């Protein structure tokens, strides 16, 4: 619990999500929460939280104990189909962030792999999928001379814990249409005497 200065309640400010300029990973944001106990506008924040990461991904994919990764994407269009003869290839960039707050600062550098197809089996020597890490990736296309824009970041989380799975088998009324308990139902206090 943060300390409270006498006579004034602490104020909490949320810094706007900001991109790190050198990373410029569209969709991936870093957010910090700063607390000021002085209650003065413009004063320094005495307490700043460790940054946490989030990504604008509506459907964060979940993997469980995954060890191999295949990335796929849609090819971009080249309006002028030029230059000729230089080939078309993609740049894929990804990074992983450990879920544990203690180790989350140990972030591996971005990795870029040029390739010619829209499907990429990430080799073991380039990425070892670890449990309880979130991974972000993005892709851009090159016509041999220049690059297109990066795609928005996609993300997935590799969990070590496999969640339980439920399946509804049936739903049936407890009572018949004349208000009597169904003959074959014997449940707790509804058990027929």
């Amino acid at each position, binding site marked *: 619990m943060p300390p409270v200065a006498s006579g004034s309640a602490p104020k909490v400010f949320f810094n706007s999500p900001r991109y790190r300029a050198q990373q410029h990973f569209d969709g991936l944001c870093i957010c910090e929460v700063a607390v000021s106990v002085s209650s003065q506008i413009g004063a320094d924040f005495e307490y700043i939280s460790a940054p946490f990461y989030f990504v604008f991904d509506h459907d964060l994919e*979940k993997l469980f104990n995954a060890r191999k990764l295949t990335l796929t994407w849609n090819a971009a269009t080249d309006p002028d189909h030029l230059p000729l003869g230089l080939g078309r290839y993609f740049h894929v960039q990804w990074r992983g962030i450990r879920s544990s707050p203690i180790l989350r600062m140990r972030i591996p550098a971005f990795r870029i792999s040029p390739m010619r197809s829209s499907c990429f089996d990430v080799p073991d020597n380039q990425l070892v999928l670890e449990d309880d890490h979130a991974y972000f990736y993005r892709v851009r296309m090159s016509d041999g001379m220049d690059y297109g824009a990066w795609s928005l970041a996609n993300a997935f989380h590799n*969990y070590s*814990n*496999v*969640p*339980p*799975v*439920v*399946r*509804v*088998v*049936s*739903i*049936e*009324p*407890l*009572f018949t*249409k*004349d*208000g009597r308990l169904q003959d074959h*139902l014997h*449940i*707790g206090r*509804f058990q027929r005497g």
Partner: protein
Amino acid sequence: MGDYKITFTLDDSNGGDASVEFYTRRRRNRLTPVSLISAPVHIDSGTHEVIWRTMRQMSNQLYSDIVLYARATDLVNYGPQDSFPTTIDNGWIESKRRRHRIGQIHRGRARRLGHTKAQ
């Protein structure tokens, strides 16, 4: 009256301490938590049953467009959501109440006219 038994299976590879949440949606309405007699919490893998008290959430009518959603969770994660389209028929409750009320009226009228049985 209006109670429905939901039978479901749970598969939890980690074993124990799983819970199941039930939601229902009708047409384009919001997902609404289902009113259960006892919530299925801290349960193991296997087949389980819960009682849905539909009359707490619906009226005594026929609902043919109900979808029941179920989702299991442990201490860490949510599992995939399962959906189960079903029909909830509580229309007979109204007719039963109406018959009971008509019977009351007839018995009262007969009593006033002196047609009651000799005690």
